[in-house]
């Protein structure tokens, strides 16, 4: 029986969806999508503020009004040094020691630089941060991140914004099996509610996504669909899924089938 609540760093959440805030058609649609999704954790970022446009000030007002738990990211950082300074700025700006730690290794795939990620995680953990690292399904990197103080891991499903879903299902299953007691969240690459449900059916603790909702034809309706899919996947995993097999197995009882004769094989 799985826990009905998602617990990360001692805080519990009823929803297992972590929602990104970028790329919505309007601030109002973002606010309505967040509500429809049921998400209690929103990812946010920080960017250079222009004195003339003051873009960030309006966004901050919107986010404050939503009143949800904030998870700032270090998106776009390519070195541990950049990620550490960005995390420190985010902690002051958003008033939280939670950080979605990203150290990007390649601009085409946006895959994590696992070496830089571990280095940054060590430094930030020593500085009191609660780190949610954007990583891969690599087991040895996962071990080093946990040793560095990470109490949550967020492996990618597939490249950020690709909508390819879970491209290494066996790898994600192995990670789940190796770390049964560490909260695992699939972060990135989710394109459809079925992808999110699949992650939950593998026993993952949550799903983080952004683009699949923000860029949907109707982001508010899609947010609700994802909320239901994640809940369904979680309940299905908790209920115990049957294992696939190669041959058919009749669901209707064979005994008493009319017109059959014991001496006639099918």
């Amino acid at each position: 029986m799985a826990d009905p609540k998602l617990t990360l760093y001692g805080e519990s959440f009823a929803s297992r969806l972590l929602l990104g805030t970028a790329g919505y058609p309007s601030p109002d649609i973002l606010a309505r999508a967040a509500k429809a999704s049921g998400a209690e954790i929103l990812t946010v970022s920080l960017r250079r503020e222009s004195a003339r446009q003051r873009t960030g000030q309006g966004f901050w007002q919107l986010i404050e009004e939503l009143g949800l738990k904030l998870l700032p990211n270090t998106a776009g950082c390519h070195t541990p040094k950049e990620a550490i300074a960005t995390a420190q700025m985010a902690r002051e700006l958003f008033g939280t020691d939670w950080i979605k730690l990203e150290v990007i290794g390649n601009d085409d795939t946006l895959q994590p630089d696992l070496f830089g990620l571990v280095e940054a995680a060590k430094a930030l953990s020593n500085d009191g941060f609660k780190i949610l690292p954007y990583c891969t399904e690599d087991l040895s990197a996962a071990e080093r991140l946990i040793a560095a103080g990470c109490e949550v891991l967020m492996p990618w499903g597939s490249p950020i914004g690709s909508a390819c879903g879970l491209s290494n299902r066996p790898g994600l299953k192995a990670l789940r099996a190796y770390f049964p007691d560490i909260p695992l969240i699939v972060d990135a690459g989710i394109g459809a509610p079925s992808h999110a449900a699949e992650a939950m059916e593998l026993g993952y603790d949550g799903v983080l996504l952004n683009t699949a909702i923000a860029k949907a034809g109707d982001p508010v309706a899609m947010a609700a669909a994802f909320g239901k899919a994640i809940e369904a996947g979680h309940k299905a995993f908790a209920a115990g899924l049957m294992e696939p097999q190669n041959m058919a197995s009749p669901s209707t009882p064979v005994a008493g089938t009319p017109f059959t004769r014991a001496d006639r094989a099918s």
Partner: protein
Amino acid sequence: MQIRVNGEPHATEAGDLAALCAELELGDAKIATARNGDFVPASSRAATPLQTGDEIEIVAPRQGG
């Protein structure tokens, strides 16, 4: 004095980071700062003198995934 603010060349007479933020009318805004790649807490801005060639970052909340 010539410095860089958010990657752009910027001429300023501000003596410290707090004065620079005020000059840019961001003194009371929701911002965070860094100087030459290192985070500078809000409480340390006034005690952070500026020097020619300094690279200053001034950031604010933004949408993210």
